[in-house]
C-alpha cells in the first residue's frame, strides 16, 4: 500500500510538471506563430486551438489516465503468484475504440479541409490584391513588384489590410518563404512558381526566414516584412521609381560611390537602381547580388545582421568571417585576399558612407 502511494505521488508530480511546463511558454517572440498579425497565421492558430489542441488534451488525459490507473491498480505485489483471468479481447470494446479516433479525426479533418481551400483561394482581379514576386537565392531574398517595375531585397513592403499574392520561386536550390506571424510557409522551388495569398492585419516590421535547408548559410537567410498604410506604401513606391540621388561631389560618400562602381568591384554584382523592366520573367536573374537601392532604409544586411554602420563595415571588411560560403565571401573577398587587394580601412569607410547615403 505504501509503495502504491509513493507511485501515485511520483507519477502525479511528473505529470503536473509536464503539463504546467506547457502553459504560458509560447508567444511573445518575433517569430511566434501564436501572435498572428495576418489573416493566414490567425486562421491557422485558431484551428490549432479549436478543435486540435483541446481534442489533443482530451486524448492525452484519457491515455495518460488509463495508463496511470493500470500502474496503480494492477501492480504486482511481492510474492503474488496469481494468474489473472486470461482475457483475449472484447470485439465490441475494440470496435468502440476504433471509432473514437475516427470521430476525433473527422472533427479535425472537416474544418481543416475547409481551411485548406480557403487559404489557397485566389482573391480575384477585383480584390485590389498586391502582386509581388519572391525569389530565393543562396542566401537572401529578392522581391519584385512587376506592377511598379520596382525590385528590392531583404525587406518586403506590404499594405495593411490589403491582400497580397506572392509568386514564389528560386534561382538556385529549394528555399522556403516563412513570415511566421503573418502566414505559414511556401517552398521556393527552382523551375516552379508557387503562390501564397494572405492579408497583413497590423502595421509594423515582421520577421521572416528561410525554412528549407538550402546550404551552409541556411540559418542566415532572413527577411523582414514591412507592413505599411496605403499612404506610406504609395510614398515608398513613388520614391523607388528612381534611384537615390548621388552623393555631393568631394564627400567621402562620393569617393565611396566611385569605389563601388569601380575598383572595389561591387557594381559587378549589385545595382543601386530600384527599377527594372517589369516584363522580365521571374526565372531570369537580374543581378548576382541583392539590389542595394535605398540601402540605408533596409532593416537587415547580409540577410541576418541588423543594418548598422558598424555591421556594414564588418561585412565589407571581413566578409569571410561574417558569412562564410556566401558568394560575396567566396567570389569577392577571398579572391581579393589572395591577390592582396583587400580594401583598405578608408576604402571600406567610404563605401559604408556611400551605402548609408542611399536614402
Amino acid at each position: 500500500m505504501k509503495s502504491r502511494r509513493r507511485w501515485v505521488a511520483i507519477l502525479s508530480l511528473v505529470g503536473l510538471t509536464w503539463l504546467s511546463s506547457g502553459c504560458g511558454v509560447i508567444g511573445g517572440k518575433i517569430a511566434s506563430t501564436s501572435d498572428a498579425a495576418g489573416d493566414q497565421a490567425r486562421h491557422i492558430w485558431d484551428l490549432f486551438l479549436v478543435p486540435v489542441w483541446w481534442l489533443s488534451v482530451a486524448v492525452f488525459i484519457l491515455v495518460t489516465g488509463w495508463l496511470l490507473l493500470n500502474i496503480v491498480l494492477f501492480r504486482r505485489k511481492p510474492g503474488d503468484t496469481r494468474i489473472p483471468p486470461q482475457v483475449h479481447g472484447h470485439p465490441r470494446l475494440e470496435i468502440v475504440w476504433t471509432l473514437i479516433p475516427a470521430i476525433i479525426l473527422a472533427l479535425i479533418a472537416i474544418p481543416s479541409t475547409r481551411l485548406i481551400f480557403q487559404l489557397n483561394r485566389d482573391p480575384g482581379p477585383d480584390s485590389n490584391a498586391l502582386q509581388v514576386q519572391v525569389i530565393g537565392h543562396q542566401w537572401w531574398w529578392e522581391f519584385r513588384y512587376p506592377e511598379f517595375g520596382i525590385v528590392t531585397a531583404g525587406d518586403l513592403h506590404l499594405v495593411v489590410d490589403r491582400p497580397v499574392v506572392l509568386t514564389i520561386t528560386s534561382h538556385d536550390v529549394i528555399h522556403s518563404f516563412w513570415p511566421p506571424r503573418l502566414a505559414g510557409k511556401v517552398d521556393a522551388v527552382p523551375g516552379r512558381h508557387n503562390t501564397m495569398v494572405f492579408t497583413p492585419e497590423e502595421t509594423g516590421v515582421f520577421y521572416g526566414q528561410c525554412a528549407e535547408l538550402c546550404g551552409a548559410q541556411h540559418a542566415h537567410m532572413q527577411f523582414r516584412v514591412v507592413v505599411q498604410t496605403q499612404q506610406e506604401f504609395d510614398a515608398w513606391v513613388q520614391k523607388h521609381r528612381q534611384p537615390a540621388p548621388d552623393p555631393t561631389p568631394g564627400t567621402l560618400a562620393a569617393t565611396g560611390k566611385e569605389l563601388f562602381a569601380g575598383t572595389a568591384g561591387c557594381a559587378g554584382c549589385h545595382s543601386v537602381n530600384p527599377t527594372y523592366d517589369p516584363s522580365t520573367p521571374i526565372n531570369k536573374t537580374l543581378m548576382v547580388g541583392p539590389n542595394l537601392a535605398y540601402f540605408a532604409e533596409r532593416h537587415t544586411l547580409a540577410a541576418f545582421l541588423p543594418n548598422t554602420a558598424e555591421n556594414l563595415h564588418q561585412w565589407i571588411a571581413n566578409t569571410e568571417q561574417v558569412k562564410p560560403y556566401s558568394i560575396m565571401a567566396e567570389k569577392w573577398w577571398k579572391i581579393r585576399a589572395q591577390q592582396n587587394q583587400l580594401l583598405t580601412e578608408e576604402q571600406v569607410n567610404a563605401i559604408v558612407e556611400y551605402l548609408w547615403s542611399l536614402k
Partner: protein
Amino acid sequence: MAEAAIRLEQAGYRRSALVEWLTTVDHKKIGILYYWTAIVYLLLAGFLALLMRIQLAQPNMHFLGPKTYNEVMTMHGTMMIFAVAMPLNAAFFNIAVPLMIGARDVAFPRLNAFSYWSFLFGSLLMWSSFLFGHAPDAGWFGYANLSSSRLYSAGPGLDFWDLGLQVLGISSIAGALNFFVTIVNMRAPGMSLMRMPVFVWMVLITAILILLAFPSLTVGLFMIMFDRYFNTNFFNPLHGGDPVIWQHLFWIFGHPEVYILVLPPMGIISEVLPTFSRKPLFGAPFVIFAGIAIAFLSFFVWAHHMFTVGLGPVPNALFAASTMLIGIPTGVKVFNWLATMWGGSLDFKTAMKFASAAVWMLMIGGITGVMHATVPLDYQQQDSYFIVAHFHYVIFGVIVMGLLAGTYYWFPKMYGRLLDERLGSWHFWLTFIGTNLTFFPMHFVGLDGMPRRYFTYAAETGWGSWNLVITIGAFILGLSQTLLLVNVVKTLRQPAAASADPWDGRTLEWTIPSPPPAYNFAVIPTVRGRDAYWIEKYGDGHHTPAATDTMQRREVHQPRHDNPGHSLLPPGVHLPKPSWWPLIVSAGLTAMAAGMIMHGTETLGPLGFPIVGLGVFVVFFGLLGWHFEPAIEHEEAHVSQ
C-alpha cells in the same frame, strides 16, 4: 561462455574466435554483431547530437561552423535511421524471430551474414567521410537539387551519402527477403499465421515494407548519382529537370520507412506488455490487422511531407485525409496495449518500464503527428522544431525505448544472463526524464518559429532559454545511456545463470536454454495456439497444460545434451557451415561504392574506376565461390571425438 565455446567446438567449429565471428552464419551471433555495431553507432550519432546541442545551447555560439553543423546534423539523422534504428531492429529479428517460430536458423544463413557485413562496410564507408573532411551535409533526406548538383554541394560528401546508402539499401533488402522467407516457410508445425507471435507478425510486415519501399529510394539515389557523375539533369530545373521528383521518390520510400522503423518495436511492446502483465495481448488479431493497415496506408501518405511544396489544395486535402486514417490503427494499438495491462498482474521490470513508457510516448508523437497532418497547421509547423519534437518522440520515445525494452527482455537469450534491475531502473528513469526534457520543449521553440537545421540563431528570437533546457536534457539523455554499457559489463562478468524462462514467458524462445544451443531446438516443437509456451505451462481453457502429454512435455523441456562423449547435435539436425563468402562479397560491393566516390574527387579520380573494377571482380568471384560452396556440412563433421 565456456560452455557455449565447448558446445560449438564439439559441433565442429574448431576455429579461432575471430574467424568464428567473421565467418559465422548463426543467426544468434549475427544478431549480436548487429546489436553491438548499432549500439556503438547509437553512441557515436548521439555524440553528434550533443555537439549540435552545445552549438544551439545559446544564441550566436561559435562551437560548430555552418558547414560542420550541417555535416554533423546530416550524419546524425542518416546514421540514426539507417545505421542505428534499422540494424537494431535487424538485431532483434535475428536474436528472436527464429527462436519464436521454432526454427533452427533463418532461411538463408549466408545471405544473413551478407546483410550484416554489407551494413557494416556501408556504414563504415559513410562514417569515413569525416576522415576525408567531406561529410554529407544536405540533411538525411538530401533534397535535390542541393544534393544532386556539384554546383551546390561540391566535394565528395554527398557521394559518400549516395553510395553509402546504396550499399545499406542492398543490406536491408537482402535482410528483408531473408526474414520474409524465414517467417513464411520455417514456422514450427501448428504455428498458423494467426498463432504467430505479434513481434514476428510485425517483422513480416516490415520485411514486406522494406521490399516495396527501398526500390523507390534506390531509383532516387541512382538518379542523384547520375546527376552528380554524368550530368543527367534529372533534378536540374535549368535543363527541364524537377527537384520535386526527388521528394516524391524519397518520401514514397521515406514514409513507409517510418513504419519499417516503428513496427518491430511495436511488436516488442506487444510481447513485453503481455509477459509482464501475465495476460495475453488484448485483441491480438486487432493489433495484427492494425499493423497491416498501418503498413498498407503508409504507401498513400508520402506527400504529407510536402504540404508546402505547392502541390495544390486537392492533393494536400487527400494526403491529409489518408494520413489521418493512420491515426485510427495507431489508436487501436495504444488502446489494446492499455487493455492488455488492465486487470493484469503487472511486474515493472526494466523491460516493462520501457515498454509502458513507449506507449505513452507514442501517444504524444501520435497527437503531434495528427497536428501536422492538418495541412494548415503544417504550413506553420513544417520544417520547424515542432516537427523535430514530433519525430523524436516517435523515434526515440517509441523506437529506441521499444528496442531498449527488447534489450532487457531478450538479453538472457543473447548471453544467458539477466541485466541488473537496479541499474536498469536508473537507466530507465534517467532516459525517460532526459527524453522528455530534450524533446518536449522543442514543441515550444517550434511554435515560436524556430526552423530546424539552423546552425545558430539570434538572441532577439527569444529561443535561447528553451534551447538551454533542451541541451541540458540532451546531456542527461546521452550520459544516461552509459548506464546500459555499465550494466552489460557488470552482467557479463557474472556467470551465465539465467534459466530458460526467467520472465514466465509466453512464446517458444523461453522453452530452450539461455543462451540457446547452436541448433536452437533439439526437437522442433508443435504449436497449439498463440502464446504457444504459456498454453503448455498453464493451459488456456481450450487446451490443458502439457503435463499429461509426454510428447509436449519433452518439447517444452528441451534436453540439454550434457552427456559427455555424446554427439552434441541431435540426430537429423544439420547446421549451416561457416562461410567467408558473405564477407568477401560485401567487401567487393563496398569497394565498388568506394571506387565510385574516388572517381568523383580530384586527387583520387584516376584510381576510381580501377577500384570499381576490382570490386566487380571480387563480387563476381565471391558469388561464384558462394555458389559452389556446400551450404551444409556433412554429417560426419558434427561427430565429436
